[in-house]
């Protein structure tokens, strides 16, 4: 019997693997915010253990999650706040509210209220900033896109969570860390709207920002490699309808390419997740494939674009890349997983598995196209996972 990690590694390797691996993208603890998910996994532990970074307790939650869902990877094996920060912050639950207290020695005690994530799901995590008035030159870029080198990150104890996960699951599961794309990260950092204008008004500055972000990401890639991650995941959203292919190629691609090579050189698998990509952006898809990430994951079709796995397999084969790039399933989390009948779910899982195994020689990892929605019940997720195992088996 193969371990989850062996299954994933086999799918990245050559030759048809025994079983198609099954994973869930974005299945980290922060995602499971619906009351059923957290309660099911946390088994009575309070929600704020995520704020206080109580690593032993969080590990127990992951253990329950894995026992119930049994994915082949551990998603979210990322950095945590520094050891210093964790030492100096404590959660204070009162009858009225829950507070975070900063007890850093020598400074005034600060206290602020922390909120339980709402039962209906996620709330804002990305403020919409505008740094156009602040970052105007290459010097500003260097000043504000702060670099922490790999050694410092490790020294500060920001890898304690990752280390704990690797220690517990490193043998059994594929450890996946999230790095983000330097391109999208840079635009988000500068502010989504102002960065869109930079594409036309000051592409040089934008490129400097993207390159600097790539340097920063490469440092975290080094950390992940050093601490025992098996792969990194990068979401790219400046694709598809967002910007032109020429701009993607000129400003985004070289930096992404650098991150891919850095990861590969250190033995990590690089999985690229460009959203909004389908048949009508085929030239873009092909351009992305030229960079040869180890894995490519296309989101489910949101606005009617065709991102079918069968089409993906045919594009990769036409480019003769079928031995180099692994593709991912993209079961629709809304139409199929959340709202489809059991028959529809089974049919789709079976179909995608068949494509992966028969049309793409098993260099395929079963997944949903985007995160599971909080309206989807845990029972449904378990039903889905069982189906992926059933149809993923070789015989």
């Amino acid at each position, binding site marked *: 019997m193969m371990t989850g990690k062996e299954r994933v590694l086999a799918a990245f390797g050559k030759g048809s693997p025994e079983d198609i691996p099954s994973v869930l993208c974005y299945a980290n603890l922060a995602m499971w915010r619906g009351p059923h998910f957290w309660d099911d996994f946390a088994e009575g532990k309070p929600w704020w253990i995520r704020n206080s970074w109580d690593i032993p307790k969080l590990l127990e939650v992951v253990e329950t999650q894995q026992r119930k869902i049994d994915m082949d990877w551990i998603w979210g094996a990322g950095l945590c706040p520094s050891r210093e920060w964790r030492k100096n912050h404590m959660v204070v639950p009162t009858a009225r509210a829950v507070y975070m207290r900063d007890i850093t020695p020598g400074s005034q005690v600060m206290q602020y209220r922390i909120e339980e994530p*709402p039962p*209906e*799901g*996620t*709330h*804002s*995590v*990305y*403020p*919409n900033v505008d740094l156009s008035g602040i970052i105007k030159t290459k010097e500003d870029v260097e000043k504000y896109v702060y670099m922490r080198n790999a050694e410092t990150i490790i020294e500060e104890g920001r890898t304690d969570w990752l280390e704990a996960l690797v220690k517990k699951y490193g043998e059994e599961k594929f450890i996946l860390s999230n790095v983000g794309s330097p391109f999208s990260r840079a635009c988000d950092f500068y502010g*989504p*709207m102002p960065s*869109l*204008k930079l*594409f*036309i*008004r000051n592409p040089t500055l934008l490129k400097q920002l993207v390159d600097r972000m790539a340097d920063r990401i490469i440092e975290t890639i080094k950390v992940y490699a050093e601490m025992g991650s098996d792969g990194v995941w990068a979401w790219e959203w400046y694709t598809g*309808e*967002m*910007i*032109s292919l020429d*701009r993607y190629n000129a400003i985004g691609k070289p930096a992404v390419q650098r991150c891919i090579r850095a990861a590969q050189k250190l033995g990590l698998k690089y999985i690229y997740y460009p959203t909004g990509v389908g048949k*009508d*952006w085929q030239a873009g898809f092909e351009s992305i494939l030229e960079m040869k990430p180890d894995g490519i994951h296309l989101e489910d079709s*949101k*606005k009617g674009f065709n991102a079918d796995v069968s089409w993906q397999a045919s594009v990769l084969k036409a480019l003769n890349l079928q031995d180099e790039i692994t593709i991912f399933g993209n079961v629709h*989390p*809304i139409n199929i997983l*959340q709202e489809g009948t059991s028959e529809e779910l089974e049919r789709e899982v079976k179909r995608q598995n068949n494509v992966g195994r028969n049309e793409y020689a098993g260099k395929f990892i079963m997944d949903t196209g985007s995160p599971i*929605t*909080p*309206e989807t019940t845990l029972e449904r997720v378990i039903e889905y996972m069982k189906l992926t195992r059933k149809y993923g088996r070789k015989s």
Partner: protein
Amino acid sequence: MSIENVSNKKEIIDGLRNAVVNYDEESAKRLAKEAIEKGVEPLEAIQEGLVKGITEVGEKFSAKEAFLPELVIAAEACLAGIALLKPQIKSKKQMKSLGKIVIGTVYGDIHFIGKKLVAMMLEANGFEVYDIGEDQPVEAFIKKAKEVGADIVGASALTTTTRFEQEEIVKAMRREGLKAKIMIGGAVVDAAWAEMTGSDGYADNLQDAVSLAKELAEHGQEETM
């Protein structure tokens, strides 16, 4: 003083259109000023020049010939020109807007690019737009709709979790007895969802959003007549 030289007038109007099509805000502003100085009918300069330009860019965007950076800058150029020309429109009748629209992204959702573009396009096409921003609770939509006497309320949601807020907005609007029509949109919104929420319509691209708003505004007016 009205313009004598027809070719000059045409040049200015074409220039305004081209400024938008070429994503050139400075030229849009310069030509808007020139139009005013030379007595070109401001409404005509807006409709035949700037709006034609942004419509063209919008079409290119749908056809994937133009992308977000182009669209954002073109829309800003168009709106900058309109801001200069609009106060010059003299006749009362011509000044009448197509309707008042309150638009925002729902609570818990910070995606605003699509909403912002829709808002800009609606404004460029003659609506009076009140963009309340992103991550806005139901009450903010209601409050603004009441305050300005909105004809239409537009709610954008980009995730499956947050789209439920659209339904809440519809319910609250009905509960409060507000007459405004409700249109929704965003990556996870389709016809089935639009119907389920009880909203008056949805659109998944810019042109459809503008046509829908025009349609809803007309219906609204018929109903109140």
